[in-house]
């Protein structure tokens, strides 16, 4: 009895496993699944990115229903680096990249028999057309500019994206998750012209730097000159002030001479005489000048003596 129960349990378990294999299938988080009934698509799973529904699902066993799974993860697509014209007639090379996912497995299977390379080929054509159309609507200054109002880099990207978004969804069963410019360039012969222009520009920059440097140096020197003149004139003013004060003080001290102006004048004269004859002086005196007036007497007496 006990043995039979065990056997029965194991048997039931095996039947369950077998049944599960026949009637159930799992959808990974990274996959979308399409169920076909007699080759005709009837249901899909896990296609909404906002409402993921991975896990175990039921189906009728083969040959009634069949499950086909596709990669749900975001695929990277890179466009060709191709030449086109901007609105103002400039030739530019632009390549875009896009992240895309399979959003409608039924349509995707129908269109590309589930082949990702074939899907990318069609997607490439779609993106190229949109790229040429959008780039042709914008002047070159929308691609490069220091002015944030002028620069439309992100806007150009979103215009391309919105242009293909609906078509990709409706025709290919593909969702464009994001799109951006991956390469931006100029035709090869233009690059050489750009180099020539850059060299010219550098020449101007060099001249500008030199001129500016010289004028700055001049400014520094002339400012210093001005400062020096100011300092010196201030010093002169201070000196004059000091002298003035000194003279005023001296004048006050001279008041004492009023006690006897005659003597004061006499002393001054004496002093002046002494000072002015200190050096390299030749004195020519006659005999009336004291003390040579003594000679006068001598002279008068001498002739009287001699004869």
């Amino acid at each position, binding site marked *: 009895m006990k043995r039979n129960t065990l056997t029965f349990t194991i048997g039931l378990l095996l039947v369950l496993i077998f049944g599960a294999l026949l009637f159930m299938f799992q959808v990974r988080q990274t996959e979308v699944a399409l169920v076909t009934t007699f080759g005709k698509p009837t249901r899909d799973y896990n296609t909404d990115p906002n409402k993921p529904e991975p896990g175990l699902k039921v189906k009728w066993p083969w040959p009634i229903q069949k499950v086909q799974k596709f990669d749900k993860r975001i695929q990277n697509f890179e466009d060709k680096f191709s030449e086109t014209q901007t609105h103002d007639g400039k030739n530019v090379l632009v390549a875009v990249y896009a992240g895309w996912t399979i959003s409608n497995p039924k349509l995707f299977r129908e269109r590309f028999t589930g082949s990702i390379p074939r899907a990318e080929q069609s997607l490439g054509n779609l993106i190229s057309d949109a790229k040429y159309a959008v780039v042709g609507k914008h002047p070159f200054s929308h691609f*490069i500019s220091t002015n944030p109002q002028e620069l439309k880099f992100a806007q150009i990207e979103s215009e391309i994206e919105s242009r293909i978004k609906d078509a990709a969804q409706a025709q290919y069963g593909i969702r464009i998750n994001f799109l951006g410019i991956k390469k931006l360039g100029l035709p090869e012969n233009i690059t050489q012209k750009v180099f020539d222009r850059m060299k010219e520009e550098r020449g101007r920059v060099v001249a500008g*730097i030199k001129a500016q*440097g010289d004028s700055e140096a001049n400014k520094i020197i002339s400012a210093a000159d001005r400062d020096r003149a100011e300092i010196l004139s201030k010093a002169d003013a201070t000196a004059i002030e*000091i002298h003035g004060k*000194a003279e005023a*003080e001296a004048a006050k*001290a001279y008041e004492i001479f009023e006690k006897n102006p005659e003597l004061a004048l006499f002393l001054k004269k004496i002093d002046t005489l002494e000072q002015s004859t200190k050096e390299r002086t030749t004195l020519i005196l006659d005999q009336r000048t004291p003390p040579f007036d003594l*000679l006068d007497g001598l002279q008068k007496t001498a002739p009287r003596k001699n004869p």
Partner: protein
Amino acid sequence: MSEPHDHHGHDHEAPIPAPISVEDSGSQALSEALRSSFGIVKIIMFVLVIVFIGSGIFTVPPNQKAVVLRFGKTSSATREQLLGPGLHWSWPYPIDEKVFIPISEIQTVTSSVGWYAINPDGTEPQAGQSLNPALDGYALTADGNIIHARVTLDYQITDPISYVLNFKDAKETVTNALDNALLDAAAQFNVDDAVRLERSAFKDKVVQLFSRAVEQQQLGIVVGSSKLESIPPRQVNEAFNAVTAAEQESSTTNNAAKSAASTMLSTALSESNSIVNTAISDRAKLLSSVRAESTNFLDRLPAYERNPQLFRQLLLTETWRKVLANAEDKEVMPDRADGKPRELRLQLNREPESDEYRARRQKQKAEQNPVTPPK
């Protein structure tokens, strides 16, 4: 795979007891044989179950994490579910599935969309006349110039489930976003700013645009350190070097001017000091001479008042003595015989002054000029 096989083994075990009642030595031997073979099958089955369950043991290597998908799904996308490094067990394949994630590892991505072609052996090919768009990458600056720019960026995966399960090749998506950010940022800077003056602002812009993009694309990563190289094209390198040289020259001129200016100022300051000091010492000199004069005056006043005539004569004579002693040449002209004064005619020939004498005289003049005692 092995279930249908097991199923067969068990299904046959149940009907076996019925034929055993038959009294037949041949069938008895057969049932004996079957019994023993079922025993072997049971052992094999047991071993298979052990192997099946044991195959669920796995190791998460260091620097990695793992996430287990049960029937293809994670029950809730939280970090707690991540299995750290070490030994783990999960149900084997059809039930559970494990995905390894390089999480704590810092990932590095380089955008070389703006760099010129480099040979496979790492050497740089000679720069041509122009840039071939198929080979040489570059970025356009806001003023329509060409630069080469390359950015290397570290990032850390913060949402590993999204990073691994939502992207076919997340690393390539990250690279694309970085390429895009680099071009977009370069388009907003003039060439001088991009390669010389505002390189860090340029880098910050790249990182900012990149961070915004990866957030929008829900890559689940966080930007770490980054490095940006930006250079002018090699074809115009010389012209750019000339600018650097001019700048250096200009700064040399500037420094020279600055040092000349500071010399001028310090000279002016010391000159100014000496002017003021001279004035101060002149003042002291004047005052002391005035004081001396007045002292002299007061000293002599009583003597003068006693006998002015005598005082005058004495002092005059005394002074004369000094004057005469000092004088270099002295000529005494006696009166003519008729008692009238003699007439004297001098022919003066200006004697060239010696340098020493001139300097001394000027100095004396300078000392006397500013201070003229009042009359």
